[in-house]
């Protein structure tokens, strides 16, 4: 109980701190801070449109954030979420192209499955390269991000180009193949449910299954895992596959739920932002729901801001950078002050 109160207070303190950071950032650039913070808040939570906007932004962040959680918990520093997200979209678009107009109702689920498989396979490849060839995942996934983007650009100009061969985009998905929408008033789609289910699934996997326990053991101490016959290499490759699968799912969900097509601007850096999302969620799948929502709100609110301020576009990453630094600084500072749990007689 006391713990819950303390956590709650800490959460409040963090929220207050984050608002203060927003406030100061606006002030620093000579913008009216009250107006700025108000606009962001109303844009994110002001009405049904705002809330839906927040949830729509939070969806890929949560899915990719969960991907980061799973990989990092296994000691694999996957920073290739962006590339895996793009590949998820590519996978979805490929199956849509392959099936042509056939079975539009079954297409939605197929897109998601293909997205997962595409993301999972490259991430697993990166893991395999680390385990077998010593190529660090941190480095290989950076390079794979670039490669995924180039691949998408190529596909949009070749095999995946729309039917009329005029634009560098894919055909737009038929409505029946899109994920269920919650109303015509907003973009809110079924993806948020998929993301929430995934969060619960990841939580169950990590904390309530043997495989999840093994994954965390490997991440904490691969040497101990090996000495206890837990196949650390296989566990790490599996973790990366799950991680890449979730990031790929994020891409596929955005494709089938939001954009309905792939274009050069498909990559919106959700895969990168997912890293601070996961870390602010303390690498815990349930807490990641909240941090993804927070970031989603920041993006959604800043959409409103972009409509009104000339610096609206660029001030968002600035705020995010400051927020993440302030947050990790605060958390580290707190954990230093926290008394060490000792068990001395």
């Amino acid at each position: 109980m006391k713990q819950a109160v303390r956590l709650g207070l800490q959460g409040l303190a963090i929220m207050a701190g984050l608002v203060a950071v927003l406030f100061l950032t606006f002030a620093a650039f000579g913008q009216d801070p009250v107006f700025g913070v108000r606009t962001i808040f109303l844009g994110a939570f002001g009405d049904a449109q705002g809330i839906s906007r927040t949830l729509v932004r939070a969806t890929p962040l949560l899915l990719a954030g969960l991907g980061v959680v799973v990989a990092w918990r296994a000691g694999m520093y996957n920073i290739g979420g962006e590339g895996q997200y793009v590949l998820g979209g590519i996978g979805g678009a490929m199956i849509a192209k392959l099936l042509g107009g056939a079975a539009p109702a079954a297409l939605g689920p197929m897109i998601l499955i293909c997205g997962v498989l595409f993301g999972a396979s490259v991430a697993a490849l990166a893991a395999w390269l680390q385990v077998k060839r010593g190529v660090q995942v941190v480095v290989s996934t950076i390079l794979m991000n670039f490669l995924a983007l180039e691949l998408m650009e190529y596909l949009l100009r070749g095999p995946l180009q729309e039917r009329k061969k005029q634009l560098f985009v894919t055909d737009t998905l038929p409505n029946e193949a899109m994920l269920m929408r919650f109303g015509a008033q907003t973009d809110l789609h079924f993806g948020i449910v998929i993301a929430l289910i995934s969060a619960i699934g990841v939580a169950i996997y990590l904390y309530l299954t043997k495989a999840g326990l093994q994954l965390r053991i490997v991440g904490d101490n691969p040497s101990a895992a090996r000495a206890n016959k837990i196949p650390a290499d296989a566990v790490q490759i599996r973790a990366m596959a799950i991680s890449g699968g979730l990031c790929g799912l994020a891409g596929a969900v955005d494709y089938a739920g939001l954009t309905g097509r792939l274009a050069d601007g498909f990559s919106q850096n959700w895969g990168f932002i997912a890293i601070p999302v996961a870390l602010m969620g303390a690498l815990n799948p349930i807490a990641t729901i909240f941090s993804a929502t927070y970031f989603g709100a920041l993006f959604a609110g800043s959409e409103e801001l972009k409509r009104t301020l000339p610096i609206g576009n660029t001030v968002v990453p600035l705020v995010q950078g400051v927020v993440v630094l302030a947050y990790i600084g605060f958390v580290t500072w707190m954990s230093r002050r926290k008394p060490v749990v000792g068990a001395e007689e």
Partner: protein
Amino acid sequence: TGGAPEGKEVKVEPNVGGGKPIEGTLKVALLTPGNVNDSGWSAIAYRGLKAIEKELGAEVANKVATDASTNDDLRSYAQDGFHLVLGHGFEYNAPAVAMAKEFPNTTFVTSSGGEFGPNAGAFRFYMEQAFYLAGMMAGRLTTTGKVAMIGGPDVPSIRSTFKAFAAGAKAAKPDVVVIEKFTGKNDDVAAAKQATLQAIAEGADFLIHQTNNAAPGFFGACEEKKVYCFGANENQNDMSPQVIASAVINAEAPFVSLAKEIKEGKYVGGIRLVGMVEGAVEFVKNPKAGAAVTAEAQAFVDGAADRILAGELVVPKDEF
């Protein structure tokens, strides 16, 4: 799964007119693919928007819209009672036409794109005309027999203008070699310079570009190597002494006349091609170019321009 309900549930639909004259302040919103300070594609549209604000006293708003936010942005502006929502790019066309069905009282117009509806349409800047003229001038003036085009991102609109430039060059000098390089990026100034230097090294002595934000790299290379070049999109004649002319889009005139139509309730959905005849596209020579442009070449190009204006010369363009 299942698609979005077909517009049945739409309740937020301010009565802002449509088909009838608008009383009170006209509200116009603009979506651009990039920041409006890119001194390129997005900047053009912003100038058009500012002209609407000034000449019609309209309330204006603008925003960068990505693929993920396009629908939301179109819808939000419509819900906020904007009478005209401009999407500056082919990528907004399909979503805008679809969205127009849900908001019959708002007009959605995109730059480029092939779809339209009763309250939605597009106008296509016939930029190819100016590029064609630039190509002719380059073809006429080149001493190496090689001219070049430097592109940033590889997109249909840029490819189409490059085709027109190449056609113009060939029209002036049938055996001209046309070099084409893309950097693949919008903002990599160094890559733009690199590509330009390479094209010059391959022999090009007249170059045109579509590098948007990265244009300083293009001009820098031309200046360094003392070769002549053309500006694009905006009037870039002052950006470097090497610029002999610019292929310019004037969005002001078509934007303002469009806004007027909306205000007077006269807009009819469709696709319009706006080019040199409408004053939307222009090939502006640089008065400071001096001897770089021979009188003969200038006359040659002027003649072609006249034929374009007279409708005798149809410049090739891609559909997109």
